């Protein structure tokens, strides 16, 4: 186990740099997890709205008050730049202007040009509030048509619009209490990016040191069997990856504020399998002996690329079908799929989850196979011979 031991020593030496990555990525994942709990809420959350009431009539004030019931009214200086800033930095979601003559027009049954809204970009809140205003106006109109007074019409409209539609979340429990909330699945969802970045940057650094030409030639000259060498290298990488994975899982348990139970274990297993796939990928990449900065390039491309293509950063449903069918050839796709199923973002089926596991394992096997092939081709004595000849021809 000499190779293995040496490798651990090299990795220990590389550990401080690894630590920098680990700390940064853990910070990222904590932020992501915290962010995603806020982000996924389906219930129409309260929006921050600022209103510039240029009409200033009882009718307009009634509207402002009604808006304030389900939203927060923010005070912003009536200044184009200030509004742009506030919208841009999302301090407010919507900037509404109630145009002068609002009350008159409303009473007259006119609907056009009652309001203005400062428009920065197309967002959900813009559409939502605009729809709400349309509905408000047409409802008031309808009551006015019924012959009611303006006050009555507004009151009735408020009543009508205040009706709550009951929305239930379906939770069909198949594996007992699943104990894997949609919110917490975010932590596992972003894990591929962290795993890819940390593992590739650390394991490859260590492996490239081991694979350095001079050291490799020397190892090749020794009595150690090539297969044993490769095996020890895989073993060392997997062990290191296991440690990284363990750290992430333990931190996950702290973030979750409880030990994993029930279905959460499936997610844990899923992440373990994915780590192994990445470990195999790291061994393969390092077989090509990239230089240090090329290595960071590969790490970033793999990490960011896979994450964007496979729905780590953007929900999969948002991706076009072309991207999705391409993503099938990437292991992270199957990881995310399994994770979505476990979190019941997609319909849960144990068989399908197992299938995703299996496909990831196949990726790992394929990567190992390719690695062996590459090592055989690149490092065989024949290629050393030709390398020597090449060097001789050059000098």
């Amino acid at each position: 186990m000499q190779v293995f031991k040496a490798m651990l020593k090299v990795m220990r030496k590389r550990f401080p740099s690894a630590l920098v990555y680990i700390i940064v990525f853990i910070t990222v994942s904590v932020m992501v997890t915290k962010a995603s709990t806020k982000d996924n809420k389906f219930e129409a959350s309260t929006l921050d709205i600022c209103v510039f009431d240029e009409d200033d009539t009882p009718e307009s004030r009634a509207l402002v008050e009604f808006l304030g019931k389900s939203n927060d009214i923010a005070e912003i200086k009536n200044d184009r730049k200030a509004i742009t800033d506030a919208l841009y930095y999302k301090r407010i979601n919507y900037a509404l202007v109630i145009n002068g003559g609002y009350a008159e027009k409303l009473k007259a049954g006119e609907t056009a040009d009652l309001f203005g809204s400062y428009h920065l970009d197309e967002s959900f809140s813009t559409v939502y509030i605009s729809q709400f205003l349309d509905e408000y106006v047409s409802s008031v109109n309808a009551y006015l048509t019924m012959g009611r007074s303006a006050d009555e019409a507004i009151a009735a409209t408020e009543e009508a619009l205040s009706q709550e539609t009951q929305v239930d979340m379906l939770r069909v429990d198949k594996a007992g209490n699943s104990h894997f909330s949609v919110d917490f699945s975010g932590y596992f969802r972003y894990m591929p990016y962290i795993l890819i970045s940390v593992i590739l940057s650390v394991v490859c650094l260590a492996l490239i040191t081991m694979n350095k030409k001079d050291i490799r030639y020397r190892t090749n000259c020794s009595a150690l069997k090539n297969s044993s060498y490769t095996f020890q290298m895989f073993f060392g990488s997997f062990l290191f990856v296991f440690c990284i994975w363990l750290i992430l899982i333990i931190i996950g348990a702290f973030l979750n504020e409880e030990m994993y139970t029930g279905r959460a274990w499936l997610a844990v297993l899923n992440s373990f399998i994915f780590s192994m796939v990445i470990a195999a990928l790291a061994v393969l990449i390092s077989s090509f002996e990239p230089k240090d900065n090329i290595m960071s390039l590969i790490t970033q491309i793999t990490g960011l690329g896979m994450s964007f293509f496979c729905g780590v950063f953007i929900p999969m449903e948002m991706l076009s079908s072309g991207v999705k069918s391409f993503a099938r050839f990437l292991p992270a796709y199957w990881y995310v799929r399994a994770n979505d199923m476990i979190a019941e973002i997609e319909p849960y089926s144990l068989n399908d989850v197992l299938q995703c596991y299996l496909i990831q394992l196949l990726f790992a096997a394929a990567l190992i196979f390719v690695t062996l092939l590459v090592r055989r081709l690149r490092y065989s004595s024949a290629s050393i011979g030709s390398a020597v000849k090449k060097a001789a021809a050059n000098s």
Partner: protein
Amino acid sequence: MFLHILKYELKNGLRTKDLIIWLILFPIGLGICFKVAFGGIYDKTEKFSTIPVAVVEESDNAAFRQVLDNITSADDPFLKVTYADRAAAEKLLDEGEVEGIIFSGDKLSLTVKEKGLPETMLKSFVEQYTVKEKIVTDAISTSPEKAQEVITALTENTASSCKEIPLTQGNPDVYIQYFYNLIAMVAMFGCNTGMHITIQNQANLSALGARNNCSPAHKSVSILAGLAGSFIMETFCMILCVSFLAFVLKVDFGERLWLVYPAAIMGGMLGVSFGFFVGSLTRVGEKAKVALMTAVSMLMCFCSGLMLANMKAIIEDKLPWFNRINPAAVISDSFYCLNIDEGYERFISKLLTMAAITAVFVFLGFISSRRKKYASI
């Protein structure tokens, strides 16, 4: 002397193929990746597609059925309705065949499984119906003679009551932010060129550094020449990167594309000076420096929304000052301002912020790498 070092700095830099790959191929690769991944998103989120929904009729509700029939018989229906009993509907929902179940009884209620766009649409559909139903009921009960008029008023397509006052002539696509952040990331990666200046000039980091230290060239001059060389290289890379995004990938930077270039170049200089600063830190090994630099610049890019677009908004909420000084955020904001703002004040203030941060990094780097002896080589 300055020109002499600069000349060789550039020669050396242009022949360092790794760096070229870093700074040129990387944004091209990632840009294509973004383009492919986001290409369809804007359409996908903006356009309605048909939402499959199950309807469970708990009691007879002819009016609702009538509405549903009207919708489904339209040319481009936004709902695909399946009538089912409760158990069957739940099974459909569980298997993902439908997005939600509408229980139509005396009151409508909705059951969904996920939190997403289709569900929100279903909810607002149900709410609108409920409101209209209430109005019609009120109309029938209070003034039945006007009922027909009311219904017509409710169903006719009225002009939108709200007129948008555009604050910008720019590109409203929010996903363009990813490209801003991509440029910011490329700019931050300029730190790789910045770092090698210090490595080449510090005797304890390389043999070359030792030799350069023995020469009579003033250290400040050779550092300045190195910085200038890196700035020029980075400028070249940024121009290439922006041009590629703007002309090959056809990313829309708004009306003032020519101003995107100076902003990107300024960002690139910021990146170089950041690398120069990290490189000049004493007591940190070279590998650790690279790791620190890469990790910190990735963290900056993350906080600026490279991975998650709403990260910046979250930080704006919690730590607004960080967005003002996070180099990656400042760089990507400058493009945003250019796209969104009509005036130039904010854009200029972002440029000034970049210049200030650059100056601080260069200054600190100079302080810690000024002519000195080393404890060990």
